């Protein structure tokens, strides 16, 4: 299993098309893992780019961490990973909370980002939406685990139930993830986002609770385009081929 040891955590990553000249770095959301990209979206991008996927700390196969789930720390983790992989600049894509991490990184280090893609990121001020996002994420895991075409909860095997239970128990009860996410509630209004210079693609589900966040980001970011696709917050699972191709076209720069 490929891992990179960062100062505080061991990070699991997957790379595709390693020899390509340019890199797309992809950040998943809270309570999911890199598999949200791995099977469909990343291989489309890997037709042209070196693709790097990683599990955020506390998620997937990365190490656990009790602290540091705020955007500054998560952005530090992303930047440390780039340094470890000797990536000076990347095309950056983030889903849900991962999109907020991508935005934060673009604000702090615009020179390290070539273009920015934000998929279904909520406005952290809308805590209700954040909660809905949590629920969606849990359903998404159930969806992955059970292979259900619809999103109805279905029975899960004992081992998976225990795995899920341990993950949520740890993240929600033993780590600071809740408080860390809450402290970001003014992220959209604190400034910074309006100074993002990058060409930015915003991708949102037509039926998502996060649509208003997409509209707000479109208004704040000077060079942003908003793309709606069929579905709700789960669009990476519902429309992976649409999203993969939209990202590939967006990142492509004509020389």
């Amino acid at each position, binding site marked *: 299993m490929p891992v990179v040891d960062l100062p505080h955590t061991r990070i699991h990553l997957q790379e595709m098309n390693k020899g390509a000249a340019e890199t797309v770095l992809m950040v998943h959301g809270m309570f999911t893992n890199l598999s949200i990209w791995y099977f469909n979206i990343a*291989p489309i991008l890997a037709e042209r780019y070196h693709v790097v996927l990683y599990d955020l700390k506390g998620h997937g196969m990365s190490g656990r961490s009790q602290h540091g789930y705020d955007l500054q720390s998560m952005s530090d983790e992303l930047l440390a990973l780039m340094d470890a992989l000797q990536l000076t600049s990347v095309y950056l894509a983030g889903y849900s909370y991962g999109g907020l991490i991508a935005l934060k990184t673009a604000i702090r280090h615009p020179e390290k980002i070539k273009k920015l893609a934000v998929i279904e990121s909520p406005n952290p001020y809308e805590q209700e939406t954040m909660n809905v996002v949590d629920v969606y994420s849990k359903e998404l895991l159930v969806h*992955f685990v059970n*292979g259900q075409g619809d999103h109805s909860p279905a029975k899960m*095997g004992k081992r998976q139930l225990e795995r899920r239970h341990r993950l949520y128990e740890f993240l929600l009860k033993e780590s600071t993830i809740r408080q860390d996410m809450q402290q970001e509630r003014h992220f959209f209004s604190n400034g910074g986002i309006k100074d993002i210079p990058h060409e930015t693609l915003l991708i949102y589900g037509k039926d998502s609770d996060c649509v208003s966040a997409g509209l707000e980001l479109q208004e704040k970011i000077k060079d942003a385009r908003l793309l709606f696709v069929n579905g709700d917050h789960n669009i990476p699972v519902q429309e*992976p081929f649409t999203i993969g191709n939209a990202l590939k076209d967006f990142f492509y720069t004509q020389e």
Partner: protein
Amino acid sequence: MDQLTQPAKLSEAEILPVLKQFITEVIGEEFVEDLDITAASSFTKDLEMDSIEIVAFSEKVKNHFGKDIDFTGWLSNMDLDQIISLNLGDITKYIQSCL
């Protein structure tokens, strides 16, 4: 178990134990003891594997059977529902088709 192996030399009966070994490494020996792993076993319904475990399994298949088998490329043509309902027989047949 991750050393490169020439698939041309392997039959279905030889591939299946290798896949079983990978599943054991991914989900843990204590859970495999309770499972009857056969060619008909599917990732989620029978083996209770979730998507990140399927990623780990895929990586082992790629490392073991080598670049002639584009396992991730094969999976990328399927949607997630198809991937997680794959069984070990499907994967064995795919590996053999690359011979």
